[in-house]
């Protein structure tokens, strides 16, 4: 008998726990169709970036104004007036509308804001489109050395509180791992209204071009090894923070997804592996997961979920600092 893979995430009934996460793949309606055909139980749309919207609008504005009325022959500027510049979130809203209308699975929108006003404004706009849940994609590089960790954490908490009050939607909060006390932060976010934590977001990282001596930020696809960090915090937090947890970063194969579930993930999310291999990879992961659980006689994923979490393993210390020591000392060079 096959194991039951159905999963509740953010109050949504999902056929199984392998969800395409926010990526360029979910930014295109044709790809969304392909993902759903491949079995995606829900889709998380790419993040709507407030900063990008603002930047685009001002860039369009400044480029149109460039040279306008600067001399007698440039009255009115160098460009014709166009009917529309679509600098707002309209393209994104259109994607939501089409996804909602054309696919039957839940649609989760993702939002990345910069200003407190922007976060709430766009959260409401997205909510008005009838999305099934909202994921807040928060990351903040505290380059201002005057900011304390408490300042940063409070801003996260206040943001979640504000959004929770302004929209009536299940709320997932996607964060990074770089808190002094990740676990405590998780508790605060749940208290503030997070219905799920998505761990962890990945963003542009700087690189250095040795040729030009320039800094070139970019985003590289994830590597399965990144899952390790996720596993640690899934395991530590499982059963202790009172919310759903989505594992993202480093899930490329069925074995990765299974590990995440065993550590405590409610759902697993994939992006890099789908970008590399196409939507069929999602089917493979789901099928692989089903086989693994079935072959081992699990009734359902619910049964397995968290079975290797901090609370469930005989030696929870493996998830703590000693695990680092052990890993290091057990490492044997191969050369």
């Amino acid at each position, binding site marked *: 008998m096959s194991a039951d893979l159905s999963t509740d995430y953010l109050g949504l009934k999902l056929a199984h726990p392998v969800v395409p996460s926010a990526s360029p793949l979910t930014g295109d309606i044709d790809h969304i169709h392909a993902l759903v055909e491949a079995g995606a139980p829900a889709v998380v749309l790419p993040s709507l970036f407030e900063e990008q919207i603002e930047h685009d609008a*001002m860039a*369009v504005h400044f480029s149109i104004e460039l040279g306008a009325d600067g001399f007698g022959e440039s009255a009115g500027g160098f460009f*014709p007036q166009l009917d529309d*510049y679509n600098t707002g979130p309209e393209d994104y809203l259109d994607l939501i509308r089409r996804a909602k209308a054309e696919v039957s699975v839940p649609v989760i929108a993702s939002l990345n804001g910069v200003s407190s006003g922007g976060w709430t404004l766009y959260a409401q706009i997205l909510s008005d489109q009838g999305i099934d849940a909202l994921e807040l994609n928060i990351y903040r590089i505290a380059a201002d050395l005057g900011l304390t960790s408490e300042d940063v954490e409070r801003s996260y908490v206040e943001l979640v509180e504000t959004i929770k009050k302004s929209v009536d939607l299940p709320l997932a909060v996607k964060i990074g791992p770089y808190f002094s006390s990740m676990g405590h932060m998780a508790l605060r976010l749940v208290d503030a209204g997070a219905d799920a934590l998505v761990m962890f977001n990945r963003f542009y990282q700087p690189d250095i071009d040795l040729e030009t001596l320039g800094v070139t930020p970019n985003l590289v696809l994830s590597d399965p090894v990144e899952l390790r960090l996720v596993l640690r915090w899934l395991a530590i937090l499982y059963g202790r923070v009172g919310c759903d947890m989505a594992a993202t970063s480093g899930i490329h194969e069925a074995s990765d997804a299974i590990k995440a579930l065993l550590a405590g993930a409610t759902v697993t999310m994939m992006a890099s592996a789908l970008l590399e291999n196409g939507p069929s990879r999602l089917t493979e992961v789901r099928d692989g997961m089903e086989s693994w659980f079935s072959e081992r006689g699990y009734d359902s994923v619910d049964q397995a979920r968290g079975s290797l979490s901090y609370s469930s393993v005989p030696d929870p210390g493996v998830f703590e600092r000693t695990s680092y020591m052990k890993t290091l000392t057990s490492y044997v060079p191969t050369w």
Partner: protein
Amino acid sequence: MTPLAKSSYTMVDGNEAAARIAHLLSEVIAIYPITPASPMGELADAWSHQGQSNLWGVVPDVIEMQSEAGAAGAIHGALTVGALSTTFTASQGLLLMLPNMYKIAGELTPTVIHVAARTVATHALSIFGDHSDVMSARQTGFAILSSASVQEAQDMAVVAHLATLESRIPFLHFFDGFRTSHEINKIELIDEDSLRDLIDEDLIAGHRIRALNPNNPMLRGSAQNPDVFFQAREAANPYYDAVPLIVADAMDRIAKVTGRRHGLFEYSGAPDAETVMVIMGSGAGAADETVTRLIREGHKVGLLVVKLYRPFDASVFASVLPKTTKRVIAMDRTKEPGAVGDPLYLDVVAALSEEGRRIEVYGGRYGLSSKEFTPSMVAGAFNEVTRDTPRRHFTVGIVDDVTNNSVDWDEDWWVEPDEVTRAIFFGLGSDGTVGANKNSVKIIGESTDLSAQGYFVYDSKKAGSRTISHLRISPQPIESTYLIRHADFVAVHQFDFLESIDVLEVARPGATILLNSPYPADEIWGRLPIEAQGQIVEKDLEVWAIDAAAIARETGLGGRVNTVLQTCFFHLTDFLPADKSVAAIKRHIRDSYGKRGETVVRRNEEAVDRAIDGLFEVAVGEAAGPLRISDPVPEIAPEFVKRVTAMMLAGKGDLLPVSALPVDGAFPTGTAMWEKRSIADEIPIWDPDICIDCGRCALVCPHAAIRFKAFDPDIPVPEGFLWKESTGQDLRGKRIVIQVAPDDCTGCRICVEICPAKSKEIVKHKAINMAPIDDHLERERRNFEYFLEIPEMDRSQVNAFSVKGSQLLEPLFEFSGACAGCGETPYLKLITQMMGDRMIVANATGCSSIYGGNLPTTPWTTNADGRGPAWSNSLFEDNAEFGLGMRLALQAQRSDAILLVTALAPDLGQLAVDILETIENLDRSDIDALVNRQRTHVTELKKRLGNMAGPLPKRLEGVADSLIETSIWIVGGDGWAYDIGFGGLDHVLASGRDINILVLDTEVYSNTGGQASKATPRAAIAKFASGGKETAKKDLGKIAMSYGNVYVAQIAMGANLTQTVKTLAEAEAHRGVSLVIAYSPCIAHGIDMTKQLSHQKLATDTGYWPLYRYDPAREDAGEPGLRLDSRKPKIPFKDFASKEARFAVLGRADPEGAERLLREAQHDIDNRWHLYEQMVQIHRTAEYAEVEE
């Protein structure tokens, strides 16, 4: 933008008023850009692109042609096949239409050409307004109808369209360029239903019936012989005879609809007038105000405004003149040298003579090139003809101290009525002042019962240009067609203007002043020059200030202070209650910027909300300095610059008398160096410790504001002067210096962008870095002065044809007024470094003729020997031929010189032998050495000729300079090379003569404001290509290569400096025609010009702008002629396109259309590269074997 459907008051300019009618009443519209008529074509194109239909529900087909001649041809064809067709033009454009106008009129074809009347180029080009163009068309057979105001630009447009249909005579409808075409005023629109009622459909049906149609064939355009041509020409007479009545009838019908009554000749003034002024166009506004006042003062004067100028109905004209008239002053806004009088004068004289009226007629000339025409000048004209011995012909508005034709006038005689509020705003072209003021007059005009008028004056610079906005607000309609001289409100949007010009001179006593000040309240008074302090104290001015730049910066609006200062204007005046004005400003912000996104609207609204809080009143102190307004030029400037140029720079060119100006339009070069504008906030500062002596910063500087020199160690340098030891082998033992010209730099920072030398400790620190000008100005001024004293490099010591070597040589093109970061000027500067002392430039009209030759100053300059580029601009369309003529002249002179040297050889001895041998064995491999040898010969020759008697030596002296190599450069933009001048260019390409052609390809008509040309690439938006250009860019290089003997190259400085320098050297060396097409980024691309070099590189890396050289010499050597100088593209075009607004904006407006066009544009690139790759492997020349008989 959108034509209103129903009758209503609105605020528009003359161009829009006329264009709306033309668009509603036409089916085919052929256009071509020319200032100041371009906006009519742009609006028509935009309306059609938006799907706006004409009166009959059809969207007019608007097509851009290659020239005005093309536009005229296209409408002639459209009319011939029965369409309702129109076009818009001005100046030279109208002249190019003349041949077709004769034809259209000769065939009795109804059409209307709308003209924003502009000066025809004579001794100089001028974009401004007068009637010289219209008067050149008066013999074509077109009826000519004149509008004097924005309202009339609409009303007369309707009259013209109605009357042409009924009379079959084509109409030229005109209004004054800029003064009416660009003036915003409150007018009442004629709604579409009323228009429909006015149109007689039977007349349109008649036009269709007369059209060419194979179902009912006929022949037009026959050739006729002496037997019948004359009679046939007379056959149309009845149609002309009928025009005045038809026009009068149309005017009556419109009056019934609008209540506005017009006549063929409109008389106003005293019914018993003795002196009547006859005038046409916008000058009528000033004349009417004057006549009203003169009558009030008891004078018997009147005004007759001509509306229908052709056909000139003498009998109606005479009938509207009061019987008491003793004198008529016919005012002409044109000059017809050599005629008995100017055209209107002659018509008036003839009409009165024919009508038997014994009236003295005087001719007054005024207002050429938009010269001010004020009520005081009108009064001066009236005074003149009532003197005991009046001049029959006079000028007014200038001081003619040569032929003494000008009349005196007292500018203080005229005071505008108190009910008119007058405001003047001094702004920068880039700060949005003009745009905000256009909005302000619209807000007042549309939100209140008040009338409002906006008129905008620009200087001739493109970087750091100053604008002056003149706004009038009045309870009465505003017909004052002249600049404000006494303002109730003066806003200075850039504080540093106060330091260079007396901006407060225009303030009336008690006026309100608004300063945009970076200084706090307690510092402002001390920062004002004593002249401004004096004006404030003496006239009891109320001074307010705000740091608008800070608010604009903080609200994310960059340097655009417009919204903040506009809010202050409304706050300090009382046209609208405070809450209503804020609401109205915000409404206009939404109207203007709403489509660009909520962010733009929100940020501007925030700026509005913060404006009032930031406003404070300035405490007035004593006028005690210590600052003074700086002199426009230094004391050491040449006499002409001090006497003439300085006046223009100080904004007082109007005061220069006739004697101050050259008689033939020839001006000294080297004048830009005296115009120290100091427009940069930041300037580049050199760090010698990091510099690697490459010279790239100097090469790419668009303004020659970064200089590079090498000098010997024994030359002493003052303290604080920066230098370093040369690191290169080529300059071993020398010191080098990179020096900024701090007052001439525009702060574009592309020198910093190109600098390859970075600090090893802090990579952002380069060998050249931007720094606040205030921190460095004094030191850099001193250093630049000293730098100029360091001797120039000996040309024989450097390789002028290398990147570094060229930069060690003196640029003979410097400090132009081109846009900051201009993509064109570095090429010109580079050429002058390589060969400027032996070049003549034929420059097509366009940006390069404006930054190159628009007074007050020119960047073309001379070296210490007095040699340098000699420059001229003929026209837009003829530049290639103009340059060819120059080469022909030099060849002819050289032939003459050779003959004469040969004839005088017995006297000249060895010198003759040397001269002839040098010419015969012309070896250009070391061109500098050759030229030096020739110059030595010619110097010696002239010395010897001076001592010789007889006609031959004198004749030889006149042509001796032709024995020195001269480099002819034909320079122009893509509008010239690809479109209007292409026919001539093609002919010159085929000529085989020794000529160099440089096409500064911005891929758009930059100078007229961004219209598409055939160089515009597929997928780019531009005016006339609102939906993205649908066709590929013309491959001009490939066309030129087809001749086989033309050197052809494409260069892009930002992609490959070495290839650029090498190409220009090869082009000059080629003994035939050379065509160099230079990629020239432009603000019309919608890019950050700071980064324009990286755009060039990306253009090349994507294959969008491949670099190549086709050298016929290689063909002669048995190799393929074409060589690709850039690598096979690996980056997709969209990576380049996404960085330029001209492509990227379309992706927002029309994503699907943009995607298709980008795909097609990629195909264009792929196909071209594929073709070139094959071409580099082929030999076009076949091997011929001698055929033996």
